[in-house]
């Protein structure tokens, strides 16, 4: 067949044309357009159309079974051309899926679904090749393959259940990458990866926890990062009931006001949970920006709590408070408030002063009070006196700064 083939004949020969087109197509789309999925998809579509036109021009219909059996070489060539055509069709579809099939704009979560669709496309292409190129009836093949499917299903039972749970979890999206989740059995961590078989969490001790999807689908979980990143924190405090509960809760409110970590919105709350002879139980609730800020916020709040309680002459509920009668306690607290030395004792700055020195200072101390929204110190002033905040909350505003950052509650008692 090739002996007396001239150049002009070679060019019009369908074998050469289709072969050249297929090779050029593969090189340009696979190598030349690597990293540009959209351009690559356009290229794939272009070559697919070109190949279709070429094959149809030569009278080869790739999606039909070849009616007449011709020469062996020609049969092989036609089969090859058809297989190439089907591969092109499949890869063009896959390119489309990879570029445009996204779920809610998040390609990473949609990856599993993409993989599934791609798998289906390749399966379809393979079956088409079997049916139209090799001429094997697909219907009977599928019927017999049921037996294999059962065997395969039994062998891969656990894997398959993971896969299908993974699909369900991906569609349901109870969590996404970066969320902090807590499982009912106390496993918790930040989601770093979800894939076919498992979900990977990074826990607080920086260890990777791998959870099979089938397991995750069964247990209940709490997503701490949903609906937004802010996280609620609550602290239980027990204070000796030495004064009116409303006064104690006012002290707690000022504690919360002074926390730099708690969010202003929604406003932090103080709730009185109960009162007994020995303790007033309060619950302080507030929100922080992110769950990672919880420890710092709690530490700060306990520190503020301690300082505010001391300043207000309150004590935490405990053995000591239980022993003394409330009457005694009130007396001692009022005494404490009267001695002007107590604020000096509570200032860490003056911790190096001796008692006599503190007394000298305390005698010269002047008491001043400010109404709400009054300016205590103006920006740029050189203070000639040191101000110790006895009660109330103060905010700091720096001009030329973002209000949100510049305004901070800096101190109180």
């Amino acid at each position, binding site marked *: 067949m090739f002996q007396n083939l001239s150049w002009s004949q070679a060019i019009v020969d369908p074998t050469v044309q289709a072969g050249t087109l297929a090779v050029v197509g593969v090189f340009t789309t696979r190598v030349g357009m690597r990293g540009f999925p959209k351009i690559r998809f356009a290229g794939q579509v272009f070559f697919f159309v070109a190949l279709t036109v070429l094959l149809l021009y030569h009278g080869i219909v790739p999606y039909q079974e070849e009616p007449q059996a011709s020469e062996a070489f020609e049969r092989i060539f036609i089969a090859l051309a058809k297989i190439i055509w089907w591969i092109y069709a499949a890869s063009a579809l896959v390119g489309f899926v990879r570029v445009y099939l996204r779920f809610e704009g998040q390609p990473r979560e949609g990856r599993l679904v993409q993989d599934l669709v791609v798998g289906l496309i390749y399966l379809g292409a393979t079956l088409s090749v079997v049916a139209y190129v090799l001429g094997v009836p697909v219907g009977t093949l599928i019927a017999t393959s049921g037996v294999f499917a059962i065997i395969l299903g039994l062998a891969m039972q656990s894997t398959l259940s993971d896969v299908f749970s993974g699909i369900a979890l991906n569609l349901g999206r109870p969590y996404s990458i970066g969320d902090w989740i807590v499982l009912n059995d106390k496993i918790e961590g930040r989601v770093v990866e979800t894939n076919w078989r498992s979900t990977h969490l990074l826990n607080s001790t920086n260890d990777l926890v791998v959870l099979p999807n089938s397991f995750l689908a069964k247990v209940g979980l709490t997503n701490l990062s949903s609906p937004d990143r802010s996280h609620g924190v609550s602290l239980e405090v027990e204070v000796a009931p030495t004064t009116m509960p409303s006064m104690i809760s006012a002290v707690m409110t000022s504690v919360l006001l002074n926390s730099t970590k708690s969010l202003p919105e929604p406003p932090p709350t103080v709730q009185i949970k109960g009162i007994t002879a020995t303790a007033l139980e309060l619950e302080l609730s507030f929100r922080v920006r992110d769950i990672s800020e919880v420890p710092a916020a709690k530490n700060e709040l306990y520190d503020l709590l301690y300082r505010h309680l001391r300043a207000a002459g309150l004590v935490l509920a405990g053995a000591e408070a239980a022993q003394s009668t409330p009457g005694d306690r009130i007396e001692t607290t009022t005494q404490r408030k009267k001695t002007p030395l107590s604020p000096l004792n509570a200032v860490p*700055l003056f911790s190096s002063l001796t008692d006599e020195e503190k007394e000298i200072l305390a005698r010269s101390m002047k008491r001043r009070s400010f109404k709400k929204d009054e300016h205590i110190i103006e920006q740029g002033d*050189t*203070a000639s006196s*040191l101000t110790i905040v006895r009660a109330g*909350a103060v*905010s700091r505003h*720096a001009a030329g700064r973002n209000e949100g950052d510049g305004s901070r509650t*800096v*101190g109180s008692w």
Partner: protein
Amino acid sequence: MNTLARQGFFSGVGEAATLRALTAVVVYEIDQSSLAPLLQERAALAEELALTLSHRVEYGLSLTNRGMTQKGKSVPSLVARIKSLFEVPQSEL
């Protein structure tokens, strides 16, 4: 207990921010003139104060306002400033 205007009080620098009362506020004020005799009596006090002050400033960085500290303010220089401000006779360090 929180103190305000530490920086201005101890080193004569203008306040970096306006302080506004959020609620009704009661404060105690200590004049420079009342601390001066203490410092003159015990010179070591200036160093102790400077040390605590610089620690508080470091701590305050994260807690409050970044604008309130000046960079490169070491303890010895703070001591010198406190001493000069409160007219404490300078000793050889």
